[in-house]
């Protein structure tokens, strides 16, 4: 089998950068092949790209392919240091141990181990970088759990959930990205609605339509007679109070919640799975309890 070489460009976290990641995903997704990721042209790799590439590698492996990150091609020392620090390099064949710093560790969760994930969110993420009371720290971690709950319960991911984060001390931003390679939100919404409505009509719903529906309080694709559909609602309320940003890319849909409100759009490159990318402001004045929100 021939090896496919894929160039990893410099990747930040703008929508264009995410589309680059989806292009990479579509180059390998669903094929049984051997992939070599080449870093020659990569001079910056933000944590969202780290979580995504790690998940993509495991996804390819689950399909019977193999993945090599070609560390010999990595020319940027800062990218190398970052990937070593957050543990990504050590997970993918580079002889380096992670260490504590401004990176927030790269993680692969095969199972929804609640205590492990909550410890990570509580102590390695928010508790490490935002100076708030323990009570508020715990409240924030609980909101973040909603992301994992959605990923494990609704996505049908077979390779788990992938996370990475970063603290940017100059901008006072705290970032977390959670990626799964499951069905995706628009796919789930369409499958759910098709049980009740003619499929040809449901198929006309755009990615943006489906994302908007999924973000409305009380809407859920879960069956079983228990009212659900509060995860995104609680999360977006928190992000608004914090003046942060919540972005979700899933299939051909995109949602952004920030201080200007919520917008839903269509992505011209579709991706099989879901990325939740959250940016919080590390300004103590912006952290309040939800019942203090106006």
């Amino acid at each position, binding site marked *: 089998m021939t090896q496919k070489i894929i160039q990893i460009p410099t990747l930040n976290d703008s929508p264009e950068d995410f589309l680059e990641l989806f292009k990479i995903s579509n180059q390998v997704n669903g094929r049984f092949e051997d992939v070599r990721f080449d870093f020659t042209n990569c001079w910056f790799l933000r944590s969202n790209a780290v979580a995504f590439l790690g998940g993509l590698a495991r996804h390819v492996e689950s399909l019977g392919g193999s993945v090599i990150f070609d560390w010999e091609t990595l020319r940027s020392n800062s990218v190398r240091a970052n990937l070593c620090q957050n543990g990504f390099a050590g997970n993918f064949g580079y002889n380096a141990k992670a260490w504590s710093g401004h990176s927030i560790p790269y993680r692969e969760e095969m199972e*929804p181990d*609640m*205590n492990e994930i*909550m410890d990570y969110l*509580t102590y390695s993420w928010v508790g490490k970088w935002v100076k708030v009371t*323990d*009570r*508020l720290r*715990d*409240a924030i*971690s*609980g*909101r973040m*759990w*909603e992301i994992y*709950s959605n990923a494990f*319960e609704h996505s049908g991911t077979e390779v788990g959930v992938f996370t990475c984060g970063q603290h940017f001390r100059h901008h006072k931003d705290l970032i977390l990205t959670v990626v799964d390679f499951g069905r995706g939100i628009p796919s789930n919404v369409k499958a759910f*609605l098709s049980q*009740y*409505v003619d499929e040809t*009509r*449901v198929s*006309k*719903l*755009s990615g943006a*339509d489906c994302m*908007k*529906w999924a973000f409305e*309080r*009380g809407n859920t694709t879960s069956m079983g*007679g*228990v*009212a*659900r*559909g*509060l*995860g995104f*609602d*609680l999360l977006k309320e928190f992000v608004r109070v914090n003046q942060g940003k919540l972005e979700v890319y899933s299939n051909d849909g995109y949602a952004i919640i920030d201080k200007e409100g919520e917008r839903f759009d269509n992505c011209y490159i579709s991706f099989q799975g879901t990325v939740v990318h959250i940016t919080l402001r590390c300004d103590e004045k912006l952290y309040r*309890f*939800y*019942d203090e929100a106006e």
Partner: protein
Amino acid sequence: MKLSIKEWVGPRCIIKEDGQKIYDAIHGLLKSGETVTLDFDGVSQFASPFFNFAIGQLLNDISEDELRRLLIIENLNESGSLVVDRVIENAAQYHGDKDYQKIVDDILEQQARESD
């Protein structure tokens, strides 16, 4: 009856499986008109899946007024209270038989208006 949530599920009320455990313990009692107290002393982290199953689910066959009369919640912090309030509000409005036909028609109509 009084239930110490920390003893039953620990300091984190997060997952639906733990919520179901609490539901199974209290549903029958509430149905028969008994008062139940849930004591959250020592519980520090909360998420909606737990409360959807522990409390929201009770509204499937107990009215909201009856639930508020019979279920007493103690020592729940503000963060947990907000989630419980939202869960009860959501469950009270929940109907398994939503008119999805109309929902899809409305979305497609909106889509058509925006593309004009």
